[in-house]
């Protein structure tokens, strides 16, 4: 277990959180850039989201006069909740105090808190689009969350722990083991991640088309630093799910001690893994088209089926006398 009183551990945990915040816009830009390349465009520079965020921070923040305090508080709560959720997912090092005190159910809880305030903020001003986006977001998340929890249970049954650190440590110790349950869990988690982060088969992050938008509809009324925080939180969420996929199921190279060399190796490995995952995401977004909203329950039903089959194949194939 992690050492709770060791100040170095907390320091590294804080640095890791900072790295999440810094790297999230870069990861989003990387996906965007590969997508542009696949569409024969040159694409924006990797620093572009950073410049966008800086510009938004400097701009005047305009709030509708019908807005309640919830509207003003929501960007901070959404960003804070997502950041806290990100701190639960080990990024470079396995045994950190922040990842030890909170397990994966807390992670789901933080994400739910952020989503709740996002939906509240969408409805707060009283425009039609905000309410529409909030109701759609809630529809999607109500069906994605059971699938996500089933994935969590599948992984937890293998590791006998809901703590992400223990799961990753187990995977690091056993090396390459082909587990049918993990295969289904990966598939389920990918589907849930795409739905939750609003990527292409479910929602298109690059458009403001009235009839189809989900996430963009909720943050339509925001401007200035509020908008910057909301977009930053969305990028953070994408990064969080990517790291979750990469580090839980393919943790190779992650540091188990706090030595600088191990941290460096872990950082390089993480960059390579996230780079590959970002490329795959860009390919998926290029190949598939956005589906109709009423097909989303079918899609999430598939995610739930994957997760359930993962759980069942763990019980049937991987346990026994």
């Amino acid at each position, binding site marked *: 277990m992690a050492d709770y009183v060791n100040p170095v551990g907390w320091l590294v945990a804080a640095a890791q959180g900072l790295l999440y915040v810094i790297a999230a816009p870069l990861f989003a830009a990387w996906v965007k850039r590969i997508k542009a390349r696949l569409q024969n465009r040159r694409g924006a520079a990797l620093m572009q989201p950073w410049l966008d965020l800086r510009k938004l921070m400097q701009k005047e923040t305009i709030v509708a006069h019908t807005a309640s305090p919830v509207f003003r508080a929501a960007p901070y709560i959404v960003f804070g909740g997502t950041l806290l959720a990100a701190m639960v997912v080990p990024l470079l090092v396995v045994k950190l105090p922040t990842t030890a005190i909170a397990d994966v159910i807390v992670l789901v809880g933080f994400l739910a808190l952020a989503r709740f305030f996002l939906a509240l903020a969408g409805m707060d001003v009283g425009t039609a689009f905000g309410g529409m986006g909030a109701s759609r977001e809630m529809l999607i998340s109500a069906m994605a969350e059971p699938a996500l929890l089933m994935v969590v249970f599948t992984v937890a049954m293998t590791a006998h722990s809901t703590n992400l650190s223990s799961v990753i440590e187990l995977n690091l110790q056993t090396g390459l*083991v*082909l*587990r*049918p349950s993990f*295969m*289904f869990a990966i598939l389920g988690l990918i589907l849930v991640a795409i739905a939750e982060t609003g990527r292409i088969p479910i929602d298109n992050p690059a458009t403001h088309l009235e009839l189809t938008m989900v996430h963009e509809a909720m943050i339509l009324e925001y401007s200035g630093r509020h908008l910057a925080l909301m977009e930053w939180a969305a990028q953070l969420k994408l990064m969080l799910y990517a790291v979750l996929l990469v580090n839980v199921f393919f943790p190779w190279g992650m540091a188990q001690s706090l030595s600088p060399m191990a941290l460096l190796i872990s950082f390089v490995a993480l960059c390579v893994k996230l780079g590959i995952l970002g490329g795959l995401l860009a390919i998926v977004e290029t190949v598939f088209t956005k589906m109709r909203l009423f097909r989303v329950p079918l899609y999430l039903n598939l995610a739930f089926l994957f997760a359930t*089959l993962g759980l*069942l194949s763990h019980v*049937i*194939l991987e346990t026994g006398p």
Partner: protein
Amino acid sequence: MNLLHLSLAEQGIFVLAALILLASFFLIAQVRLVAAIHSFAWQGALIAAVTFLVAGVQNTPHLLVSAVLTLLLKAIGIPWILHFLVRKMGLEREMERLQRPALTLLVGTGLVIFSYWAVLPIERLEFGATRNIIAISLAVVLLGLWCMVARHQVIVQVLGFMSMENGLFLAAVASTKGMPLVVELGVAFDVLVAAILFGIFFLQIRENLTTLDADRLNRLSEKEER
């Protein structure tokens, strides 16, 4: 059983078995006729791969013959015949809307749990590494049956029937080191003949009823005609 005590090939058998189960679910849920035929073909290919791996792990070379036979018949031959029929009848774009997709899949999951429960006593008797697959193969058989119940399209019902045979074959390979080659050859050609006979049936049904929806067969009774 702990997966860590098994070799990579045996772990591969488990992964492939799980994928065979997934192919059964796809067969039930596929709306498009051609896609359903494809998922059946994938199931056949996966079963051939499992047979191949089992032949390597248990050192039973005669299973290699049945692996090749399975690949040729179930992954290529029968799907090709069905494809040919579908093209001949102009049904490439045929779609069948499932009435309650979520409920259908949930029942399928329930069947998997039931077959696990039903197979538990058998599993205690055997000590081979692959005995856990018996539950999967029983589930594939039951899912094939459920496919024939839940779908109305005649061709998809035939696919369900054939995937039942896939489940039985998987059980034989996983638990008893395969059937004798004579039996296997007999069953394989039975299935092939069945596919051809079904093809003739399709053409007859279509000619007489102009549809391949099995539900419409209920309306043949004279009562309704009046």
